[in-house]
């Protein structure tokens, strides 16, 4: 662990290390490319000099749209060395969906006030029209083009980077409407990273630790967890795997852990599920997972059944279930909030389903219907965590309420957005919008109050889904509600779209066609699969007296089987019964939403 107080100083601390550092696996046919810490330092300095050559000054925001992980890391450290504020923006994943992508990117660039964008030769042509729609952007340059302007040993004009300087902006992922720019200083990041790797309550990262990650680097878990943390704690290194390679063939993650003797990895719940269902035995020849000390799980609701299935499947390959480290975290708190003890086993609370609906997490009796809530562990030293009721009063153990946070890891606010900053930071606490309860200082997370729908680690805002559904002919525009329902025992939320139809056709076959069109529209616009489409007559959706749609009310009605009663919905009833055991919506509905 370094004594540095900024990430740039931490980087300087490993600048002489030619032996250790990162490696990048981006293709099945080529070996991983090595970039030692020393090489990283040289590359980042050159990039910083190049940025300054492009006229970038202290505090300027620089958009980074770099699919190549090595270039992206140069970019983010380089921007810091130049005194600029990096704004990571995810590259387009599917080349057929530019419109939604450009809409999202335009919003981020405007909100952040970026003047310069650094990208690669493949993405650059797509960004051309941004120059007219975001006039503040004066330069779109490729990484290669930018560094060509300076020599290989170029160094930037020294900038005195201070702990209170903004290190970068983390735009919340997934939405096409209004991503928020989480503003983090060097001090925020250093506090969180110190806690993440610390010996007490953290991962105990030493010079022997080796990380393996396929996480996208424009997401907090990938960037802070695997790009910044290893440098600060001077870990042996990290193997980065392209996220697309993982999605195509999840076994690559396990094979790389085995090959690198990886000790630390993190992933959302769904990734462990994919490894259980999609990996064939033939892909696991010679795989040995016994080196793994930490298999972190966070970023989306944790399903204990998914993790147990993974542990069962991979025990013969040396995986120890004590490696599982469920955690709770969010970008607004830099990254991590709670960890379970490094050597503790995965544990879950068996809660009486009926009591949970009443906002109390009473342990279930033997034989009674129960829901399992994973123990996410304790907050870090020097950080505060409490659970409050809707009036903001702290709740005792086992009472479910909103989780609030305090301490050095809490963000400064949302960039250029005082309104939503004030909503999130009230009375010295960060309102997480998540629901949970504590037992003897340990946190159990029940779900999100806000209406975010998280599928495969990506965030979807109901407004976006509703807008897409409204594009279909026959749908009453503005009379669509989308929400997620956590299907018990499954890896992901089920996405439900309830749409009012101007004139419901009489022929059931036409209902199928209409449902198909709505699903297709959402899929095309957001790459999101809708699980249930309900067609409703005009006026069937719950609204407030002022005519505002009530999402949580609709979800509650759906779970109880009352939404759209009497309309044609073949197949929906079985699903409703299946979902009735779910926990999130009971609580969501009973506590209401932040900002509603």
């Amino acid at each position, binding site marked *: 662990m370094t004594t540095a107080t900024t990430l740039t100083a931490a980087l300087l601390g490993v600048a002489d290390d030619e032996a250790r550092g990162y490696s990048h696996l981006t293709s*099945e*046919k080529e070996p991983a490319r090595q970039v030692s810490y020393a090489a990283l330092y040289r590359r980042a300095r050159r990039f910083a000099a190049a940025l300054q050559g492009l006229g970038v000054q202290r505090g300027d925001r620089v958009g980074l749209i770099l699919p190549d992980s090595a270039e992206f890391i140069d970019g983010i450290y380089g921007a810091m060395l130049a005194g600029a504020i990096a704004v990571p923006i995810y590259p387009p*994943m599917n*080349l057929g969906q530019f419109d939604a992508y450009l809409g999202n990117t335009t919003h981020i660039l405007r909100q952040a006030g970026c003047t310069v964008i650094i990208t690669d030769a493949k993405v650059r042509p797509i960004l051309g029209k941004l120059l007219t729609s975001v006039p503040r952007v004066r330069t779109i340059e490729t990484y290669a083009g930018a560094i060509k302007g300076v020599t290989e040993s170029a160094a930037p004009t020294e900038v005195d980077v201070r702990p209170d300087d903004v290190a970068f902006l983390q735009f919340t992922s997934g939405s096409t409407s209004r991503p928020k720019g989480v503003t983090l200083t060097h001090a925020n990041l250093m506090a969180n990273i110190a806690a993440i790797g610390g010996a007490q309550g953290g991962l105990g990262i030493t010079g022997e630790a080796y990380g393996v990650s396929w996480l996208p680097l424009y997401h907090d878990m990938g960037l802070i967890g695997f790009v910044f943390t290893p440098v600060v704690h001077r870990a042996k290194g990290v193997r980065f795997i392209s996220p*697309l390679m993982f*999605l*195509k063939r999840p076994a690559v993650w396990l094979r790389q852990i085995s090959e690198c003797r990886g000790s630390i990895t993190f992933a959302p719940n769904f990734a462990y599920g994919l490894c259980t269902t999609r990996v064939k035995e033939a892909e696991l020849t010679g795989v040995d997972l016994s080196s793994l000390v930490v298999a972190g799980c966070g970023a989306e609701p944790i399903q204990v059944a998914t993790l147990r299935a993974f542990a069962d499947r991979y025990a013969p390959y040396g995986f120890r279930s004590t490696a599982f480290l469920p955690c709770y975290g969010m970008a607004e708190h830099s990254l991590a909030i709670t960890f379970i003890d490094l050597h503790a086993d995965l544990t879950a609370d068996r809660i009486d389903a009926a009591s949970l609906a009443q906002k109390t997490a009473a342990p279930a009796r033997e034989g009674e219907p129960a829901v399992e809530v994973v123990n996410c562990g304790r907050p870090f030293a020097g950080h505060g965590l409490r659970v409050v009721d809707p009036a903001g009063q702290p709740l005792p153990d086992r009472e479910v309420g909103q989780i609030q946070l305090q301490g050095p890891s809490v963000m400064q606010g949302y960039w250029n957005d005082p309104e939503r900053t004030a909503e999130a930071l009230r009375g010295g606490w960060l309102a997480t919008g998540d629901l949970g309860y504590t037992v003897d200082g340990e946190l159990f997370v029940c779900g999100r109050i806000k209406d975010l729908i998280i599928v495969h680690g990506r965030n979807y805002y109901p407004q976006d889904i509703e807008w897409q559904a409204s594009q279909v002919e026959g749908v009453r525009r503005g009379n669509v509600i989308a929400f997620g329902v956590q299907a018990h025992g499954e890896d992901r939320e089920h996405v439900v779209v309830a749409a009012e139809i101007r004139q419901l056709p009489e022929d059931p076959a036409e209902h199928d066609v209409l449902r198909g069109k709505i*699903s297709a529209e959402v899929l*095309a616009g957001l*790459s999101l699969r809708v699980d249930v489409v309900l067609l409703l007559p005009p006026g069937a959706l719950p609204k407030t007296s002022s005519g505002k749609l009530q999402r949580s009310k609709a979800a509650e009605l759906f779970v109880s089987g009352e939404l759209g009663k009497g309309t044609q919905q073949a197949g929906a009833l079985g699903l409703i019964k299946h979902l009735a055991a779910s926990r999130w919506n009971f609580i969501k509905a009973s506590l209401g939403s932040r900002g509603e």
Partner: protein
Amino acid sequence: MSVAADNSYEGVLAKIFEYLEEHRVERPTAAITAESHLIRDLGLDSLQSFEMVSELEDHFSVIIPLDLFQSAETLEDVARAVVQVVQVEAA
């Protein structure tokens, strides 16, 4: 593969049809053709598309580069990508 897979364009396309018949979640009314769009007509999300590609890789014993597949929009595009890789590897 104990029996060599038919890696002509028609053979690849037939394998794709066979795979989709077995695995497709949605049952759209229109028939699957070479022109079927992965998202619009077949309703495949990105994970499902990737799953199909890894299945094709196993069947034809090839590795399809990510960028080749990223620009594919229809089944014909996917089949041509596979054929292209097969021919490069055979050469």
